């Protein structure tokens, strides 16, 4: 399975966007994690904007950056969203309410509780009526999203946007599912090479022995946040050398992503 990477979106602690993060990914600039700001998308009408939580904001921010970088029109783009667990703040508040006497769940919180809320808001924001799916494969949700995006491209021969994102759970869920910070990453993928293509990406189930050389602090981020399992892939693209990258998959298995920068 193959695709061309035409655009990248990135937002994580100390990683404000793709262009500012390239040097950090290669180790040429230091990684300094600080507080993150995740703006609500001004693509949404103000009433909708106020209703969005961290995971929706993350997914929309990185998806938009990837589209703009690729100069792809989001209105005509199919999408794959992937997240290990969706909106933890919202789930916590609903469970807290349901454990109380009144059990008065907010209707907005309820419709935001579906795992595909970012896909829904993306549709409202962009007007895209194209196919969209929302996946989860626990810690391997990025790999599952990559598989889905590339099989989609192989089948439909149309471009697609992959957005992977995870947001922290508050306590008491955090103790059982510690995700330290929000993180989002998006790839705008094309079946054919365009003048915007920055790398060719091939994916198979072979094993990889080489190490892409992700800086140490970013390795910690990769290990702590499921969506950040895509960082080695971005590191390879940023380095600009042809490289095989291991993308962690189910229960210790891995995928081989062969990155050929263009």
């Amino acid at each position, binding site marked *: *399975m193959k695709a061309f990477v035409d655009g990248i979106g990135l937002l994580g602690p100390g990683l404000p966007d793709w262009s500012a993060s390239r040097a950090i990914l290669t180790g040429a600039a230091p990684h300094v994690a600080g507080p993150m700001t995740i703006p609500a998308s001004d693509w949404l009408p103000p009433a909708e904007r106020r209703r969005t939580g961290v995971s929706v904001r993350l997914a929309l921010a990185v998806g938009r950056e990837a589209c703009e970088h690729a100069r792809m029109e989001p209105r005509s783009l199919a999408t794959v969203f992937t*997240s*290990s*667990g*969706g909106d933890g703040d919202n*789930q916590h508040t*609903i*469970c*807290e*309410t*349901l*454990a109380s006497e009144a*059990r*008065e*769940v*907010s*209707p907005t919180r*309820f*419709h*935001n*509780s*579906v*795992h*595909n*809320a970012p*896909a*829904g*808001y993306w*549709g*409202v924001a*962009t*007007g*895209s*009526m*194209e*196919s*969209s*799916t*929302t*996946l*989860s*494969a*626990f810690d391997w*949700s990025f790999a*599952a999203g990559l*598989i*889905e995006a*590339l*099989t*989609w491209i*192989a*089948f439909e021969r149309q471009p697609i946007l992959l957005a992977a994102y995870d947001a922290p759970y508050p*306590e*008491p*869920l955090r*103790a*059982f*599912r510690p995700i330290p910070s929000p993180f989002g990453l998006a790839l705008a993928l094309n079946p054919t090479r365009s003048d915007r293509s920055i790398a060719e990406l091939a994916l198979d*189930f072979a094993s990889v022995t080489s190490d892409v050389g992700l800086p140490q602090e970013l390795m910690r981020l990769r290990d702590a946040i499921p969506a950040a399992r895509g960082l080695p892939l971005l590191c390879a693209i940023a380095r600009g050398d042809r490289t095989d990258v291991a993308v962690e998959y*189910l229960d210790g298995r891995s995928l081989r992503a062969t990155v050929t920068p263009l």
Partner: protein
Amino acid sequence: MEPLALTACSIVTCLGAGRQANVAALRARRSGLAPCTFETVRLDTHVGEVAGVDAVRLPDHLTDYDCRNNRLAQFALDSDGFGERARAARERHGAGRIGVFLGTSTSGILATELAYRHRDADGRLPADFRYRETHGTFSLADYVAHALDLTGPAVVVSAACASSAKVFGNAVRAMAAGLCDAAIVGGVDTLCLTTLYGFHSLGLLSPRPCRPFDIARDGISISEGAAFVLLERAGSTKARVNLLGVGESSDAHHMSTPHPEGLGARMSMERALAGAGVAPDRVGYVNLHGTASRTNDASEAEALVDVFGTATPCSSTKGLTGHALGAAGAIEALLTVFALEEGFLPAGANTEALDPALHVDYLVAPRSGGAAIAMSNSFGFGGANCALLFGLTGS
């Protein structure tokens, strides 16, 4: 697309466990909905609760996954000999060559809802709470892959009420790309407080058993259920029904209200037909999403007329099964397949006076004669739409 054969299936709904119980209820138009007595829920609504879920025991090595959703999954693996057939398929294809593509909306969140009631003085959850294996969105596919010893690609699609219809598309694409030679597809969703109180907050629960396409329809009835299908490449099997087409689209309209003219729904139906190369007039029955909410039925009827005209027989089986949310797509896909195989067109239940504003041939009594090709629709929050097209082999 290349047709894929349905070589094994399993279904558990409030109508009963297994194909026979569900077909008998379909023929008799027997509803499985009853006043809600689930858990501590005090809401004036009817639900479709599956009898016997609490008694299901998971295999010893998988008890970490114990929760209502995975118990219902195991119930379905034990029904209609599905587990044995899946294991035979594993022998034929190899454990790594069978994918697991399953849909759920709320997974095992009931476990978390209950755990929140047992927080200690410092607000901590009980130490035996297990996130990955119960509440986690991937829990269902994780459990089924482990229960069947499968090591191919595995993923959960969680796109609200379209989840377990959309998984057929993931399986089609993965098999076409050569990632696997067979696929377990389906869905499981179970009753929980989040969906019952959540739909209540939106004013969408009917106090009566839901009445799809009725002029006085006043909301949905939530239920639970599970359905699994084994998909293999057509040609080498003796399957009687093939998956012919999958159509997916998005509404791009609103988080919880369907597009008023059913534009996204229409696109999904047209794409399923186009992918199969089947003209609309060859479709003999449509199993509607038909939740019995005012807006869903109106927009779906409009979309149906745009695609098929007014003469294609259709019905919603949610008056019988209730709305099993993330499992509805796979459950209704199977009810559609059973109708093809058994040679009758199923009717809705509870509907007394058809809404004259909905210009479709809605069946209020089962019709004999059957169909060779039929469609099943599923639409969800977030504007997720999916239409599936099935046909008798040779059709």
